[in-house]
């Protein structure tokens, strides 16, 4: 039976079909839906959201050493967090198949950077597979698990946003069970103390040679001969665009680009007049082709920033052929459109936090989550973002550097559990005095509302202990700890004011559910009484999409308003009820 599956759904299906036993990860666009879909097979596959990618990676590593086929999922930056276990699991090796599924985001649709995960494969000396549609996403996961078991190596399956979130037809297959044999004690194999790590290191290089041979013979890499004038080496999804725009060209399709399939690359290059490498982001394959002594075009005409598309390839074709570059820009009238960036939802509890912070001249070191949207106008109340957890540690750094303004670090609950705790421990231990706000909506909202250690539920659907941020803060040595409902605007402002006047670190847990996740938190819509409203526009400063203003009228859209009453507390004339 054929089904129309997204790349992420297909990977989940692949995990089921390949007999995977353990699937773990931490949410991150565009990887999140993999585990959400694995959950449908939870009677066969144990699945969990781990607190962060490092924990997830190590969990899957432990599972695979018992012989259980295991996968771990994350977005590209997640692998930075999990890089430490990656770099040594490559020495220790695997028993049950181990595939790390890492989703890159060329074009930065939902990310803070555009790193190319393929560099990690070379760094760790392990195979990386790159599907170009959903059927391949499923198949490559299955192949990846086989490679992992045959060569005792971790394998990376790299998707990109367009593979993860595009749908295409997949022929479903049955599950094949792989029964784990249990952990077998073998310290020289599993314990990289220097004496044993050195032979491991040798094995890594030997394995790499064997894998190089294998990747040239793998069906994941294939030549499609066409006209010999132009040969295109197309990696991952670039293959689909190349087929569309260069239907007559010869193509070397790379689905397994590292270790590089040298034999196949040489054979292909020898068979064509001109060679072009089309890959998204870095010149990962191109650089190697050149190192083999083969001249080729690549990043001289293929952009290395942002994602490719059929239009990008049409432009490349025009450059090769010396014809006019096709123009398909947005129409002129599109410049009349107002920008429509993402915004905090109506009644989002985060909005009140930023509205309250707007009353103070402080530095706000922010972090990543829905609350990052507090950076945009008209709220404008976040000054830095670096990476998950950075909101807390950077506040500490500013304070110890002697920043004279009060410094506020803000993180979400999922971010706090992910990597905020260690930063807070540093504040308690090395004694600085920022104000840390945990925007605690008891859910990982930005990535589509996944449960986390504070939610009281697991991905398997079981109830769980709700981790207490207060207890964590206490354990980190923080004495001033407050829990407050941020919708209570005046109390929020008062608490901030008092905290800014104390020379001690403060943790404020702004606790209120995300109204998209918990619809029961919504209240009846409010109205503006036009006879009382003085058009002072104060309510518009909170940037709520439910308050619409055009042509000097201000009204609340009843279809959007969630009744949080922030605007009511801000209106000085009592016009809103």
């Amino acid at each position: 039976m054929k089904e129309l599956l997204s790349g992420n759904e297909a990977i989940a299906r692949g995990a089921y079909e390949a007999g995977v036993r353990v699937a773990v990860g931490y949410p991150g666009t565009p990887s999140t839906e993999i585990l959400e879909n694995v959950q449908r097979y939870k009677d066969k596959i144990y699945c969990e959201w781990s607190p962060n990618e490092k924990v997830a990676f190590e969990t899957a590593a432990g599972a695979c050493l018992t012989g259980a086929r295991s996968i771990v999922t994350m977005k590209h930056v997640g692998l930075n967090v999990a890089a430490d276990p990656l770099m040594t699991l490559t020495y220790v090796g695997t028993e049950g198949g181990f595939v790390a599924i890492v989703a890159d985001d060329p074009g930065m649709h939902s990310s803070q950077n555009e790193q190319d995960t393929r560099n990690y494969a070379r760094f760790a000396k392990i195979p990386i597979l790159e599907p170009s549609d959903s059927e391949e996403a499923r198949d490559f996961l299955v192949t990846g698990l086989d490679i992992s078991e045959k060569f005792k190596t971790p394998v990376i399956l790299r998707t990109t946003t367009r593979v993860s979130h595009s749908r295409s037809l997949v022929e479903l297959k049955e599950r094949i069970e792989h029964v784990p044999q249990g952990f077998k004690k073998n310290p020289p194999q599993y314990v990289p103390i220097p004496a044993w790590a050195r032979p491991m290191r040798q094995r890594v290089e030997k394995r790499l040679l064997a894998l190089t041979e294998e990747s040239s013979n793998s069906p994941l890499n294939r030549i499609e001969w066409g006209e010999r004038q132009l040969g295109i080496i197309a990696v991952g999804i670039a293959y689909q665009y190349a087929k569309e725009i260069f239907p007559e060209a010869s193509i070397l399709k790379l689905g397994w680009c590292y270790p590089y399939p040298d034999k196949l690359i040489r054979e292909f290059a020898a068979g064509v007049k001109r060679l072009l490498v089309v890959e998204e982001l870095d010149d990962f394959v191109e650089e190697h082709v050149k190192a083999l002594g083969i001249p080729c075009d690549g990043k001289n005409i293929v952009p290395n920033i942002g994602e490719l598309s059929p239009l990008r390839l049409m432009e490349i074709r025009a450059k090769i052929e010396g014809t006019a570059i096709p123009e398909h820009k947005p129409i002129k009238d599109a410049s009349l459109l107002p920008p429509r960036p993402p915004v905090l939802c109506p009644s989002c509890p985060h909005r009140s936090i930023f509205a309250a912070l707007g009353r103070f001249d402080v530095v706000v070191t922010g972090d990543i989550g829905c609350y990052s949207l507090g950076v945009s106008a008209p709220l404008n109340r976040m000054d830095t973002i670096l990476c998950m957890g950075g909101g807390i540690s950077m506040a500490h750094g500013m304070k110890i550097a002697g920043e004279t303004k009060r410094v506020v670090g803000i993180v979400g609950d999922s971010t706090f559990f992910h990597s905020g705790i260690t930063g807070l421990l540093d504040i308690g231990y090395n004694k600085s005095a920022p104000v840390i706000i945990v925007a605690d909506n008891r859910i990982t909202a930005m990535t589509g509302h996944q449960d986390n250690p504070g939610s009281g539920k697991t991905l398997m659907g079981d109830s769980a202990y709700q981790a207490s941020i207060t207890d964590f803060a206490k354990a980190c040595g923080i004495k001033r700890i407050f829990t407050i409902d941020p919708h209570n605007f005046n109390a929020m402002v008062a608490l901030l004011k008092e905290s800014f006047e104390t020379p001690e670190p403060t943790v404020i847990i702004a606790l209120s559910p995300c109204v998209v996740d918990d619809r029961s938190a919504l209240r009846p819509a409010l109205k503006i009484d036009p006879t009382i409203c003085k058009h002072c526009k104060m309510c518009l400063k909170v940037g709520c999409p439910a308050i619409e203003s055009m042509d000097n009228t201000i009204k609340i859209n009843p279809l959007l308003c969630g009744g949080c009453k922030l605007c009511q507390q801000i209106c000085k004339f009592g016009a809103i009820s």
Partner: protein
Amino acid sequence: MNDNNSCTSVFLIGVGGQGILLASAILSQAAMLCGCDVKTNEVHGMAQRGGTVIAQVRYGKKVYSPLVTEGSARVLCSFEAAEALRAAHYLAPDGLAVVNQYQIIPVSVSSGMATYPEHVEELLKKQFPRLCYFDATQKAIEIGNPRTANVVLLGALSKGLELEESVWEEAIRKTVKPQFIEINLKAFAAGRATVQ
């Protein structure tokens, strides 16, 4: 440029929360029922928080790229009035534009940082020789549920495609939750009736 490999491309644009993904799912299902190869692409993540949302559907004998090439869409469907202009360059010169009259005022306008175009209808008429411009949200309210505006629009856009009429009903039945099938069939019929 005409669409490559004789595939049909459809481009949907709107604002997060308008049910674009359901419309794209029904459309893909209809194409599958006609025996076509299908690929779609959807926006997830950050953009869903009230930002511009896009879905693309391509079907035909064999589809490679899930992304629609600019200037090649057979139909452009905009779930919000002015948003159609943002994606106008995706429509083929002879393509059909289906545009919902419903306006959603973004925060950038309410907070005075930007303006909403004044004469949207004129701009649309100037841009799209084949334009179907109507209030799908109002129609959906009349039918009994404003959330079915997406399927009203789908009914209208179905007129711009050559998929057999009968497959649409089956596609709706296969895609929407059982309790919403009847109202969505009504919504679809109402939308389809707006295009001659």
